[in-house]
């Protein structure tokens, strides 16, 4: 598995699409802190010792999922396109080992990116705003981001394996993410306007709901009510919300990974796509 994991890391680093997305994540981080630094001091003052949180939460809302689904969509499909699935599957490894190595490698790569930008957010916030508080939540925040990326990494993996075309798989997986995100936002808005809690309840079943908010929910819960005077953090979050989000991610990831594994182990390995 170590061989495939290292291979997966090298493969991801050799792909322009991935490099562009990583660059976008880091540029977003830098831009965020630049904007915060330029804001009037009285606005930043109440939460300047929590500035590190911004750099962890913002990418975990959308960007990390786009990166995860892009990595996932190419993990298997690109091997078919390049004809290198034959290379791997004619070595002494089972298809299940091939699957495990690829999934683990993709997750390790995503985790490395999350860790890097999280550390960057800490360095930048410390450098711009001085000493930071409640850093005991730093690790759980970063870990939540890694865990939440599993949903759309799995979406990418399953679509990539089903279609065996990387670009099409990336587009479809991204469409899935944005569709879910838009529906979730719409349900949340309508629920807030009408007071119909059932709509907000439905939203919790969507894959983007848990993926995009688990990190913020965990950090907010750790900080407690009123620590940061911003709408999401002001009301505080509950352990139940964290549990629901974690279950949502686990359920989607497990189901999608199982479909990927079944498809990979039971169907013919297609020859290089024309």
């Amino acid at each position, binding site marked *: 598995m170590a*061989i495939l994991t290292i*291979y997966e890391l*090298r*493969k991801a680093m*050799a792909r322009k699409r991935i490099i562009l997305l990583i660059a976008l994540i880091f540029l977003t981080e830098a831009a965020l802190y630049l904007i915060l630094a330029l804001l009037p001091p009285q606005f930043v003052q109440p939460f300047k010792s929590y500035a590190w949180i911004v750099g962890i939460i913002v990418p975990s809302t959308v960007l990390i999922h786009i990166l995860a689904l892009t990595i996932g969509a190419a993990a298997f499909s690109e091997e078919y396109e*390049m*004809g*290198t699935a*034959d*290379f791997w*599957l*004619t*070595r*002494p*490894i*089972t*298809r299940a080992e091939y699957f495990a190595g690829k999934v683990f490698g993709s997750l390790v790569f995503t985790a490395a990116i999350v860790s890097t930008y999280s550390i960057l957010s800490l360095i930048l916030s410390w450098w711009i705003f001085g000493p930071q508080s409640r850093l005991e939540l730093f690790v759980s925040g970063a870990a939540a981001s890694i865990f939440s990326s599993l949903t759309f990494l799995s979406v990418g993996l399953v679509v990539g394996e089903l279609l065996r075309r990387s670009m099409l798989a990336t587009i479809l997986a991204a469409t899935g993410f944005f569709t879910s995100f838009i529906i979730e936002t719409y349900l949340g808005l309508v629920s807030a306007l009408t007071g119909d809690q059932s709509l907000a309840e439905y939203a919790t079943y969507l894959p983007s709901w848990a993926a995009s908010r688990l990190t913020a929910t965990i950090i907010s819960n750790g900080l407690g009510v009123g620590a940061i005077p911003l709408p999401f953090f002001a009301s505080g979050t509950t352990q139940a919300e964290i549990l629901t989000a974690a279950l949502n991610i686990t359920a989607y990831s497990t189901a999608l990974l199982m479909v990927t594994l079944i498809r990979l182990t039971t169907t*013919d*390995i297609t*020859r*290089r796509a024309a």
Partner: protein
Amino acid sequence: MTGGFIEVDQLLKKYRDGVLVGPISLSSPRGVIYGLVGPNGSGKTTTIRCMLGLQKPSKGHVRVAGLDPASESKKLMQITGYSQELPSFPPFLTAKDILTTTGKLKGLSGEELRREVSKALDISGLVSHAGRRVGSFSKGMLQRLAVAQAIIGDPEILILDEPMLGVDPAARVQMREIFMELKRAGKTILFSSHELYELERLADMVGMMYQGRVMVEGWVKELLSQDAGGLKVEAEVLRPSLITPQLIQSLKGVQDFQMNGTILRVRFAEGLDGRETLAATLVKSGAGLVRLQTVNRTLEDLFMEVVMKGVKP
């Protein structure tokens, strides 16, 4: 099943687009070079992919070294080296990476791994390109790398899909030597090719495929023996205008003949040697005889006779 080292029994593969390949049956003993030949789309690659467990037969059975490729691929790949048609490797890896990865997956490590990698680089003539990314390799270099990675770990069986495709003449000679050396070491090699001449030089056994079936299978020596398919004779005459179809057809056992300028080619029925009668007839007719010689049968002849006509011998 007849118990060959590589055994394909009534293999039938049905693709989703309706294309049906088979039923294919072939059998190769241990320690021989088996050549699989046939035009594009004849089912060679499908057969090979089923032998490797990359595809599952819709019907029939495949056993390689007594193993079922579909369910025992890991064990099988431990003793098998494979080189694919139009080899593809991850373009961002170097030749050395490819060989090292293959070696590690075959359980090699330390000094043994280093020795195997360096031997494979040396044999394939890629020593000076070891550190180059394979994305920049030419077709011939990729083909040599494909053979190099197939021989890592001293496999018992080599399955090579079109290993000579795109290889320059010098490398071709080198590859031929590698195959012969491996055969001498007792390895079993199954390779597919379009090139009948190459096959004739290398293979001990041959399977000729056409439209998803093995039309002919046998030992090359036996298939090309003088008797098989009838004796072929070529005669050069002085006055070709004196040779009429009736004259040649009147000879006993003539299957077919061709006249091309001053050259007359005659094929006799299997087991019949009509050379003396032909020579006498040509002289007697006044056509004259400059020379008369037996034409050796080639795999190309056999291929044209049997496969292209779609008739089993």
